[in-house]
């Protein structure tokens, strides 16, 4: 094998600074972490390019594809069909893949999946494995488990590798290192690879190519994710731009593919739709540089001798029961909803405390791990709907967020969503609202609903509000709206995260009535003159 020295350099990462990334059941403190992220100037700099990139991509999509809307509808219809008949399509996929020479493994939980991969690495005597990008692998916390068993995983997607070298986790579904600036990465590479301190993106990329080549030549096992699994042929489709997934799935003698149960699509011809949608939505390209369509094992010398496909549930089948939650599984992991989300654009991915950040993460994470663990995430949204508008498979993310919020507010987690993880009281207790505060909120909203039902009650309420507003201005000055929380303590809990919007000095009805009066007076004086 070539270049042993540099292969070991890749693997010799300093573990002393590694944060503890083991599975934690503690609730994700989104509000706290988001606040910290807002004060992280370096993070804000790194994220600053995202909004304009999202806009450019959107324009490109709209300009280049007249049929965008019909493509979205077709993609969603295919996914709906696949998910509705998932049992049969999975069975067909398994049968066809086995007929083509693949070995299928089924994993109910993350732990099952980790055990399967570890056993395979032992079976094939692979102390070093190369990995191409897989969000499922992140979800399974596979790297951690492999390392604990003395197996060295090397991420080969440039962004994933950067994140691995820095002992961090990805902060975006398709742009794992978006939270780091070029300067951060240059310093990281200077420390670990000896590149210049101020290297540009091209130099850093070349350094990564050089370093990772030796890992590819040495590794006896490659682990990849899967974008789509075709039922009628048993084929796997993997999309990428860098070529690392091609290397991972063709150079080592063993290929292990990790896929969630929801990756199955019925027909090979369906790929046409998804190959038009995913690159445009994900990276703003008409097509990514490479797509690999892999069916079983190939001819000797033209790919791995063995293909193992690990099909993982890990909480997904719970989402199948209800049509509303089922659509969460239609997600093709393009990351478009992250790029346009006003919350994600400000706080980045790590604040979500989950492998899947952004709007889709706020929907998937609570369903995968239980509401008690991620009770704050469905509230990490302004419900502006930008995510729904860009979603290539038309997932109604705001509707799902509201559904999850309702479950959290009522403290009633439906039986199908994570019932084996949390009990209903935990859901309530773990949410950032304490009980008196919730009661006060509920009382206020009930009062509001009542007032909205009767015009006279509404008029009395807004009239009282205007009066109170005038008094508050007299006492607290022009910035009364900001100060009122300090004077009326319960209001502070509302105004801490929101602006108190003053009522207009006069209502529309009052203004309308006045203008009517003025017009009629005007007309009468005209008549008098005549």
């Amino acid at each position, binding site marked *: 094998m*070539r270049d042993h020295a540099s292969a070991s350099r890749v693997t010799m990462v300093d573990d002393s600074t590694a944060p503890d990334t083991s599975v934690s059941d503690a609730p994700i403190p989104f509000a706290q972490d988001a606040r910290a992220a807002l004060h992280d100037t370096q993070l804000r700099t*790194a994220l600053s*390019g*995202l909004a304009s*990139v999202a806009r450019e991509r959107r324009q490109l999509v709209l300009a280049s594809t007249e049929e965008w809307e019909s493509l979205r509808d077709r993609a969603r219809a295919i996914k709906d069909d696949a998910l509705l*008949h998932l049992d*049969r399509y999975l*069975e*067909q996929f398994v*049968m*066809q893949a*086995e*007929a*083509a*020479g693949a070995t299928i493994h089924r994993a109910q939980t993350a732990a099952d999946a980790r055990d399967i991969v570890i056993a395979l690495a032992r079976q094939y005597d692979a102390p070093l494995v190369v990995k191409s990008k897989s969000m499922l692998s992140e979800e399974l916390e596979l790297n951690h488990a492999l390392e604990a068993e003395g197996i060295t995983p090397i991420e*080969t997607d*440039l*962004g994933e590798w950067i994140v691995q070298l820095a002992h961090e986790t990805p902060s975006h579904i398709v*742009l794992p*290192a978006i939270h780091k*600036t*070029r300067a951060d990465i240059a310093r990281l590479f200077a420390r670990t690879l000896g590149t210049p301190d101020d290297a540009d*993106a*091209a130099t850093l*990329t070349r350094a990564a*190519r050089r370093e*990772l080549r030796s890992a590819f*030549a040495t590794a006896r096992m490659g682990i990849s994710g899967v974008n789509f699994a075709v039922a*009628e*042929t*048993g084929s796997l489709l993997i999309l990428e*731009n*860098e*070529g*690392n997934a*091609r*290397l991972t799935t*063709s*150079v080592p003698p063993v290929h292990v593919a990790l896929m969630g149960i929801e990756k199955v699509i019925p027909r*090979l*011809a369906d*790929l*046409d739709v998804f*190959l038009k949608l995913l690159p445009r939505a994900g*990276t703003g390209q*008409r*097509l*990514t*540089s*490479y*797509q*690999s*369509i*892999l*069916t079983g*094992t*190939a*001819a000797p010398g*033209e*790919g791995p001798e063995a293909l193992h496909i690990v099909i993982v549930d890990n909480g997904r089948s719970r989402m199948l029961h209800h049509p509303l939650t089922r659509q969460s599984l239609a997600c093709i992991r393009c990351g478009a909803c992250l790029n346009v989300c006003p919350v994600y654009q400000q706080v980045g991915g790590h604040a979500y405390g989950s492998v899947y950040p952004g709007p889709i993460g706020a929907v998937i994470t609570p369903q995968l791990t239980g509401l008690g663990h991620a009770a704050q995430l469905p509230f990490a949204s302004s419900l502006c709907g930008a995510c729904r508008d860009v979603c290539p498979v038309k997932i109604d993310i705001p509707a799902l967020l509201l559904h999850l919020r309702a479950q959290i507010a009522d403290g009633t987690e439906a039986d199908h969503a994570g019932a084996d993880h949390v009990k209903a009281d935990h859901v309530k207790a773990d949410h950032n609202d304490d009980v008196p505060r919730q009661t006060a909120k509920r009382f206020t909203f009930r009062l509001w609903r009542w007032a909205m039902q009767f015009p006279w009650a509404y008029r009395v309420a807004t009239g009282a509000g205007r009066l109170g507003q005038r008094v508050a201005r007299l006492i607290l000055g022009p910035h009364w709206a900001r100060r009122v929380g300090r004077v009326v303590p319960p209001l502070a809990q509302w105004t801490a995260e929101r602006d108190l919007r003053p009522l207009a000095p006069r209502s529309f009805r009052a203004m309308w009535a006045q203008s009517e009066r003025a017009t009629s007076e005007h007309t009468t004086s005209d008549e008098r003159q005549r």
Partner: protein
Amino acid sequence: MSDEARRLATFIEAVNAAGGTCVRVPSLAAAAEAVQARVRAFADEQDTPDALRIGYSDAPIVHDIIGDLHADAATSSSLHAVASLTSDALFALDVGITGVQWSVAETGTLVLSTASERNRLLSLIPALHIAIVHRRDVRDTLAQVLQELHHPPTEFPRHPPAPPMRHRAVTLITGPSRTSDIELTPVVGVHGPTQLHVLLLDDSSPVLS
């Protein structure tokens, strides 16, 4: 312009738009010359004056071109048939020459299948990939290629399973390898080829393979 002429023009344009280069060659001899020229240009770009190592696939069309290359003494490079290459030797290659089973005009995509050619690693590991496309293999859309890859469509689970696809490893290639993982800056040439050069063989002679 005929349908085919329009299709080929679209293909060339799309390959260029995707960051590759494409030239039309009227004959096998012209293709050999074009390969020679491209390899020389590539050699000139290299910092090290070492002789280039060129790997070529076992497709008949590639074989015919390689025959002409052997005769040329001007190229100070070594030629290696894919069958003779070990994994280490593959990683030492500078140039890979392969055929292409189909290509897509709309997107400038090359479709390589391992069913009839050993092209999987040759089109991936070397920094320069030279691909030879015959004009009869150019299709308008990807949908057409997918249909030719697998037809007729099979329905719900069959017992016993339908016979497996002949095309075990199919690779779709659109332009060179690229990334924008560092501050969204586009960089060409990460793990795969830095350069993709397509020769469109505009040969009306009878089918070769």
